[in-house]
């Protein structure tokens, strides 16, 4: 410890000298007054030079207690890009806390910090904390917080900020401070507070954790005032940390659940639709039990891993036909119920048509009705549901299953049993058709997304694997070709469709999977990668094993299609739809990008025959505990 202090003093002295030299070399002021004032020398120095020597702390710092609070919640990691507004807390994490539980994860952008926490939660089942630096850090983090909000994922966001104006260093520290800093994200966080004392910090942080992890789960914000962090714990101050007792999730009202059960039990063609249903592995078991009790097909909208793809009642690819035939539809934690039961044409005249047949009854169970805000429109278009039940889907399923079983007469049981054979045949035909579809463009270059998915499946199917990226941009091939059955086999997508989620969320999920020894797989979109390539470095630095396979279609492809559509509508030609929407000229060399940060990488791979051996090499790297990346040039979707 003493050696560390000596070395640090030497280091500081060296940097101070360099800083002095740079001050001498500063440019002279121009003769004419500039339109925008440069920071003063004092402001520049305050932000960029070594802090002046601080007097010895008069006692144990408040930030040590903050670490105790964070540790009491079982938080194992704190992701952050380092910053002065939480220097007290960071110092306590690495020195007082020994950088273990919580461990500081070095991120290269606050958006990556939050996305890492986002992906981590969906595997670990418990939140990660994120440190953000006042105004600028939180603004960087805001898009990722919005993704987490839309995806109903708790993130414990701790903000550095300095409330007392007389305690702020002149210059930049004022720029990075706000009177009400959490207001930046209040529209899409569930709760925030600005504790005025350490005891207040303890109580509000435990409260924030409970609020965040009670469905609907959402991000929360706690402001850790700089004065509280760096000030001492007062002599004789009696500080206590409230015990964390998780709040039981809300369950649907019993009468409404019985009505839903009655409709389902008596339906001739019931359909179950699930989106963000299965919060835990138990959610999958419960949904299987409900579906088998009714012999009802399940459409998995893939907000989470809800239903085994090989189960005879998994009919996700038949959604349109099934919705049209259904007499009762049971939506479980749907993001967009209206869009589930209506068709919408994006053409000259935007038209809508009902997909359901006349008289079809709609049931909804979910937490969407329990917590809604006004400004951001993530609640989607209003759907007129016959039996809307406000309650957590997974928590309500046991009561619903029990009510359905209690409702079924022997006659209804026989009728329901009679549906099984047709369901088995339809499921088998669907899976066969999907495999057949995958053969088209099998040998094409660029590599087809079906071939990419099939080759990847061949490389991992005998491992304990976990796919931590959405697959809607590759035509859903993993869901169509792989056998997904465990909760960690799939974790859904970003929630808010904000680009830049993919890579850092995968790194966070891989960190959670590391403890279980799982092989984590990320099919990484190229446009998304370029938002946050620094997450590659974080994966290498923290030795997080993760196999990333690029879906490199060299475009923001969805936008290419939009531009083409508009060009066609306006009869202006379509050949310029690539302007501003493609990532070519030059092509990005993702293997070199990854290698530059110390990651094992190969590519670009354009010949599908080269995929299998490259995947074998990459999997070997990941199995020895390192991240690896394969750049594969792919078909658009």
């Amino acid at each position, binding site marked *: 410890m003493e050696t560390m202090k000596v070395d640090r003093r030497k280091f500081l002295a060296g940097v101070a000298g360099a800083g002095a030299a740079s001050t001498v070399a500063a440019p002279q002021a121009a003769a004419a007054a500039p339109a925008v004032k440069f920071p003063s020398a004092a402001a520049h120095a305050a932000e960029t030079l070594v802090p002046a020597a601080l007097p010895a702390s008069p006692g144990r710092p408040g930030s040590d207690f903050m670490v105790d609070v964070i540790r009491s919640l079982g938080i194992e990691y704190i992701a952050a890009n380092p910053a002065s507004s939480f220097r007290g807390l960071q110092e306590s994490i690495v020195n007082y806390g020994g950088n273990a539980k919580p461990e500081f994860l070095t991120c290269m952008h606050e958006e990556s910090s939050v996305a890492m926490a986002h992906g981590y939660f969906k595997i670990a089942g418990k939140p990660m904390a994120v440190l953000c630096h006042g105004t600028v850090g939180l603004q960087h983090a805001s898009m990722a917080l919005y993704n987490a909000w839309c995806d109903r994922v708790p993130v414990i966001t701790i903000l550095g900020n300095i409330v007392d104006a007389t305690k702020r260093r002149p210059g930049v520290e004022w720029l990075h401070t706000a009177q009400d800093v959490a207001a930046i994200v209040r529209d899409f966080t569930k709760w925030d507070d600005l504790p005025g004392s350490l005891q207040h910090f303890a109580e509000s942080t435990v409260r924030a954790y409970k609020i965040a992890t009670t469905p609907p789960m959402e991000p929360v914000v706690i402001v850790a005032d700089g004065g509280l962090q760096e000030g001492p714990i007062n002599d004789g101050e009696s500080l206590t940390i409230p015990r964390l007792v998780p709040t039981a999730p809300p369950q649907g009202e019993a009468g409404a659940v019985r009505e839903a059960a009655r409709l389902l039990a008596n339906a001739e063609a019931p359909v179950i639709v699930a989106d963000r249903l299965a919060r835990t592995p138990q959610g999958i078991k419960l949904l299987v039990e409900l579906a088998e009790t009714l012999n009802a097909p399940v459409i998995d909208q893939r907000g989470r891993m809800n239903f085994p793809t090989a189960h005879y009642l998994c009919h996700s690819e038949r959604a349109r036909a099934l919705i049209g035939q259904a007499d009762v539809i049971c939506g479980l934690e749907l993001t967009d119920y209206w869009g589930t039961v209506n068709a919408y*044409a994006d053409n000259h005249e935007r038209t809508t048509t009902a997909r359901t047949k006349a008289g079809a009854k709609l049931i909804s169970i979910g937490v969407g009705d329990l917590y809604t805000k006004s400004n951001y429109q993530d609640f989607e278009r209003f759907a007129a549901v016959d039996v809307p039940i406000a309650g957590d889907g997974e928590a309500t399923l046991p009561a619903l299953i029990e009510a359905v079983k209690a409702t079924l007469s022997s006659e209804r049981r026989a009728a329901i049993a009679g549906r099984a054979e047709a369901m088995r045949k339809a499921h088998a035909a669907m899976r066969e058709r999907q495999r057949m*579809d995958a*053969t088209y463009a099998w040998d094409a270059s660029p590599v087809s997304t079906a071939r990419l998915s099939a080759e990847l499946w061949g490389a991992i199917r005998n491992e304990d694997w976990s796919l931590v990226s959405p697959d809607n941009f590759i035509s859903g091939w993993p869901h169509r070709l792989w056998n997904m059955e465990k909760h960690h086999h799939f974790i859904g997508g970003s929630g808010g469709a904000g680009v830049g989620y993919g890579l850092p969320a995968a790194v966070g999920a891989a960190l959670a999977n590391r403890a279980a020894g799982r092989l984590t797989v990320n099919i990484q979109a190229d446009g998304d990668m370029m938002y946050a390539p620094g997450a590659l470095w974080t994966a290498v630095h923290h030795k997080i094993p993760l196999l990333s396979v690029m879906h490199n279609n060299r475009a923001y492809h969805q936008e290419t299609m939009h531009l083409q559509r508009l060009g*066609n509508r306006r009869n202006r030609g379509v050949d310029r739809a690539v302007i501003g929407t493609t990532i070519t000229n030059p092509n990005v060399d993702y293997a070199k990008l990854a290698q530059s940060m110390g990651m094992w990488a190969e590519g670009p791979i354009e010949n599908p025959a080269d995929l299998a051996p490259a995947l074998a090499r990459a999997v070997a790297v990941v199995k020895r505990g390192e991240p690896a990346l394969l750049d594969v040039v792919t078909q658009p979707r």
Partner: protein
Amino acid sequence: MRCVSLPALAVAGILVAGTAQAEPSAANGHMLFVKVGCYQCHGYQGQGGAAGPRIAPDPLPFDGLAAFVRTSSGEMPPYAATILSDGDLADIYAYLQSIPRPPALADVPLLKQ
């Protein structure tokens, strides 16, 4: 390479009386398939995907496909003749016809259950 049958083109009203028509070119059709963005939803080999259905090999009869291209009112925007000429459409059709059939499912070990 298979070529578009002349009767099919005539039915679709593609041929203009008295105008000399070159044999539809699959190579030019391939270039056009990319240039006018067909690949964006249907893939470079017309294999289809989440954004658009499979259109090759064995495309729809030419008259049906041409009518759809000109008058689509669904997710696919219609291509007016000013954007995609009759000749270019015939070339694209020739390209679709030239795309080989995929391997048999039984011959692809990776796709066996």
